[in-house]
Structure formats: structure tokens, C-alpha cells
């Protein structure tokens, strides 16, 4: 599903550099990425999603070489194939929770907003325990509720690749298990692939593979 080779990335004006010689994730695999803050875990997810483009090397997701796509191509690819749960939720203040969940369908012609999609959005919200909150605005929700709304938005288009950046970081233990179950079920139901950045070592046994980013970056490999 994911193939990265000879990747080099650096932010302009920064000493930080991400170097990945080889990295592969099989389809349907659930990979946890761990490592200290500032080690480049979020940068890796952004490169996989095509939000950032590498200075060198190739990033391949499925059959598509993301690093070869132009700006518009990367955006189309991202919205159609990748569900991204951002670290700081990235919900829009002026949209209700339901509209935030449906947001990807409103900003691209690649996804079609139908009654079935709406029903599915409400179903997902119920599963996440935020059915009562769908008419509220993000400002009225707790951090955990916002996180769950962001996960609903990522899962709704049934993406083949789910990238989760600290998806359970703001959740209490019971919700953490519940949300992770939902993420894993979604991966299983749609034969999707999950790459999740986490600091929660209790959750690591549930993943197929754990990638320690510090050793990985230094060339030891996973």
C-alpha cells in the first residue's frame, strides 16, 4: 500500500531533516508510529498525504506516486483516498458538527453528497457517541468530542488509507478503546490501511507493527 524510497525532506530555514531510505506498509496493515516530539512523525504523515512534497525520493500510495502528482492532483488524491485525523482536530468553527463531518463532500466534486452519506454520517456520530452533538458547533464541544468528530470526518468517505495523528490523545480510557475499535473496524471493513502516530504505549499491542521513529530515522529500520 505504501512505499517510500530515498525520501529526503527539510523545511526551509530549519535544521530539521527527515530522511527515510525505505519504508513499506502492506494493504490492510495497522502501523503505529512512535517517537519523541519533533522527530518528524507528523511530517511523515503529511508527506504520505501529499500535503508536503519531498525534496528527494518517492512516496507511493497504492498505485499512485504521490510525489509525481501536481498540486491539484495531490489534493484530489488526498480527498478521495485518504482519511486524515489531525492532531489538533482541524474542525471549522462556523460549521455544525454534522456539517464538519460532511465537509469533504462539500469541497470536492470527487465525493457525492447523498442521503445515504448523511445517514452514514449520523450513524458514525452515534457510534462515536456524539449523536447528540451533531447540531452544535465545535466551540460548544469538549476536546474529546471534537476529536471524535474529526475521526468521523476522516472515516466517512471510506478511505483506503487512514492517517491518524494522535487520534486518541484527547480521549478518556473508555473512549480511547471504543474509538480505536472503530478505527480498526473501519480498516477491516474497507480493507484500509492505518498509519497512526501515538504516544500511548498501552495501545501498541493492538497494532500489527510499531515503528519507532527515532531508530527508523537513524537508519536502523523498523
Amino acid at each position: 500500500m505504501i512505499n517510500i524510497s530515498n525520501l529526503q525532506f527539510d523545511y526551509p530555514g530549519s535544521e530539521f531533516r527527515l530522511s527515510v531510505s525505505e519504508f513499506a506498509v502492506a494493504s490492510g496493515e495497522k502501523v503505529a508510529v512512535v517517537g519523541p516530539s519533533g522527530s518528524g512523525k507528523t511530517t511523515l504523515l503529511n508527506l504520505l498525504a501529499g500535503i508536503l512534497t519531498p525534496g528527494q525520493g518517492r512516496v507511493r500510495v497504492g498505485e499512485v506516486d504521490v510525489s509525481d502528482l501536481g498540486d491539484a492532483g495531490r489534493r484530489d488524491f488526498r480527498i478521495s483516498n485518504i482519511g486524515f485525523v489531525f492532531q489538533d482536530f482541524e474542525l471549522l468553527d462556523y460549521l455544525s458538527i454534522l456539517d464538519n463531518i460532511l465537509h469533504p463532500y462539500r469541497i470536492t466534486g470527487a465525493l457525492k453528497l447523498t442521503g445515504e452519506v448523511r445517514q452514514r454520517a449520523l450513524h458514525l456520530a452515534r457510534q462515536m457517541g456524539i449523536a447528540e452533538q451533531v447540531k452544535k458547533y465545535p466551540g460548544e464541544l469538549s476536546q474529546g468530542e471534537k476529536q471524535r468528530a474529526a475521526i468521523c470526518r476522516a472515516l466517512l468517505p471510506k478511505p483506503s488509507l487512514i492517517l491518524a495523528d494522535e487520534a486518541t490523545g484527547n480521549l478518556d480510557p473508555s473512549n480511547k478503546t471504543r474509538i480505536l475499535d472503530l478505527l480498526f473496524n473501519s480498516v477491516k471493513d474497507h480493507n484500509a490501511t492505518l498509519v497512526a502516530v501515538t504516544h500511548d504505549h498501552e495501545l501498541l499491542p493492538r497494532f500489527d507493527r510499531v515503528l519507532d521513529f527515532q531508530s527508523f530515522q537513524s537508519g536502523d529500520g523498523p
Partner: protein
Amino acid sequence: MIESLYLAWQYIRFNKIKTVILVASITLIAVLPLALEILLSESERQLLDRAESTPLLVGAKGSSLDLAMNSLYFDDEVPEPISMAAVERIHDTDLALPIPLYVRFQARGLPIVGTTFDYFDFRNLKIAQGHSLTMLGDCVLGAKAAARLGVGPGDNLVSSPENLFDLAGVYPLKMKVVGVLAPNHSADDLAVFVDIKTAWVIQGLGHGHEDITRTRDSTVVLKRSEGNVVANAKLFHYTEITEENLDGFHFHGDTSIYPVTAVITVPHDEKSGTLLRGRYLESEDAQQIILPAEVIDGLLQNIFLIRNVLDAVIALVGLATVLVILLVFALSLRLRQREIQIIFKLGCRKAMIGRMLLAEILIVLLVSGVLCSAVLGVVDVNAEELVRRLFVG
């Protein structure tokens, strides 16, 4: 585009205060010049209609504008009076119908127009309530004057003293309201009409008091000589004309020297009008004859000059406002960088972001347009009244 509009609408709804300020600014800057245009056009129409329906005006030499404004719109700038002989002069030519006007006094802020029945026929004024003037001291009110003063047939109306501190001045006259005119949509609607003789009574040229030749109170008699009785200041003057004291009212001297402010002159035909105008060409003539339409046209030229200046000011203010609005949009875009980044991260194309911002601008412009149309509609419907209050007085 529907999704863009939906998202734009959600943004606008969420940011109500910002949107209201933006809409209000755009609406104001659009409404101001357009409303001014409506009001100026209406004022032009009103001024010209009235002037064009008044063929000629005879008055004292001096400001033709004061003469026209006082005679047509009952402006409180009173021109020098001429005598009633001017009416006779026109009448004797057999070229036109003279209608005297004496517009000098006021009753509770409204002009008292002293005239004759011919004026009502000439202006096609119809009685809506009550009846026309029948005796000295009667008055008939214009439709809006009656509404503003809250009086109708059977009520009384007192003329206002010209000068509060004029101790030697005449007493205010208590007039009887006998009728209310149907709306005429002109200055007549806000006037109090009296017979010209009643206007003279208000001025003190005609008065009423007990008959001192028959009085039994000798203390009011200052001097009694053969066929002549002189009263002193104790003699009581009537301040109201009633059927009982009507006979006590009289005018001293020849009424042909009594004042009028103007004579509306309605020539029998165009040739008569031209001939009549020729008779007032002599430089030593103390009277002038004017074509009100020409005078008002000159006034309008000045108004249009002022309008050009106003238009320029509004254009500059408009330009400044548009620049400020552009700045607001630019700053708003900067403030919304995070939101734009979120949409970008989700995979939205730049064109879609552009469409959403465009949709927001369109909605704001549309709402402003609707508001602007509504305000202009209200201005248009009320233009006649507004113009009368703002420009004509």
C-alpha cells in the same frame, strides 16, 4: 456552486456582526447617491410642476426667486407687498384673470394664504370635509395641514403673532375652520386658506369693535365732535369674528391700497400673456411680471450644480469605503489562513476555495442589494413627502 453557497452562508451566519457591518457599509454607500438622485428628481418634478402650472406672477420688483417661492410654495421669505390696485390693473387689461395672494402670516407654523375663490378653481382644489369659505374669519385647511394640526371643520385656529415682542402689534385672530381640502400633493396641502380680507384683518387693516356711536360707556370715548367719535385705548377689539359681531368689522380707507404679496396672472391665451408681459417692461414700473417656470428652472440649475458637488463627494466617500471594504476582505483572508489551511489539508482545490470566498462576497452583495432596493423603494414611495419636508419646506 451550491455547496460553495451553502458553506459561504454558514460562514456568514456564524459571523453575524461582521456581516451586518459589511452589509450596512455597502448598503449605505449604494443608497446615498441613488436616494439623493430620487429625491432630487422628485424635487425637480414638484418644483417644475407647480411653476409650470402657474403661467405668470406679478409682484414687487426685487428678488424674483423670493416672489416665486412665496407665491408657489408659501415660503416664509415674504416679498415686498404690492397693492390691490395691481389686481385691478391686470383686470382692466382684459388679458388675464388676476388672483391675489397675501402670504405673510402663519398659524402654528403653517402659512396662512389670503386669496379669493378663483385660487381654488385655478388650482383645482376640492373640499373634502365641511364647506368653502363663507364669511370673514373662516379658514379652510389643506389635507396635511389638518392632519398635522389635528383640527377639522368646527374647530378654531389662532393666527400666530408676527413678533412676540411687538406690543403695538395686532391681536391674533381666532379663525373658524370650516373645511378641509382633498389632498392635492402640492404646497396647498400644508396651507391654511383664508379670504384675502381675513388676511387683512389678521394684519390689523380691518378690525371689529363695538359701535362707539351707540355705546353707553362714555369712558371709551376720547373725543366726540360733530359726526365724528374718537375712541380711546379702552375700546375692546374683537379677536374672533362671529355672526354676532360680523357687522362690527370694517376696513378703513380704500381697499385698493391694501397689500398683496403677489398676483397670479392667468392669461386668456398665449398672445394675451405676451402682451401683458410687455406692459411691465418699463424700468420705472414698481412691479415686475415673472414666468415662474423660468425662475424655478434657474433655481434648479443651481441645485444641479450643488448635486454635482455632492455626487463628487459621494463618489470619493464611496471610493474610500470600497477601499476599506477591500482592506476588510484582505485582512479577513489573513485571519482565515488557518481555516483555508484546514480546507487545503482536507484536499480542497484552490478554485473551490476561491469559489467559496466569491460566494461569500456575492451573498453580502446580494443582501446589500436587497436592502438597498428596499430602502430606495421606501424613499421612492415617500419621495413626494420627503422632498416637501427637506427641500420645499
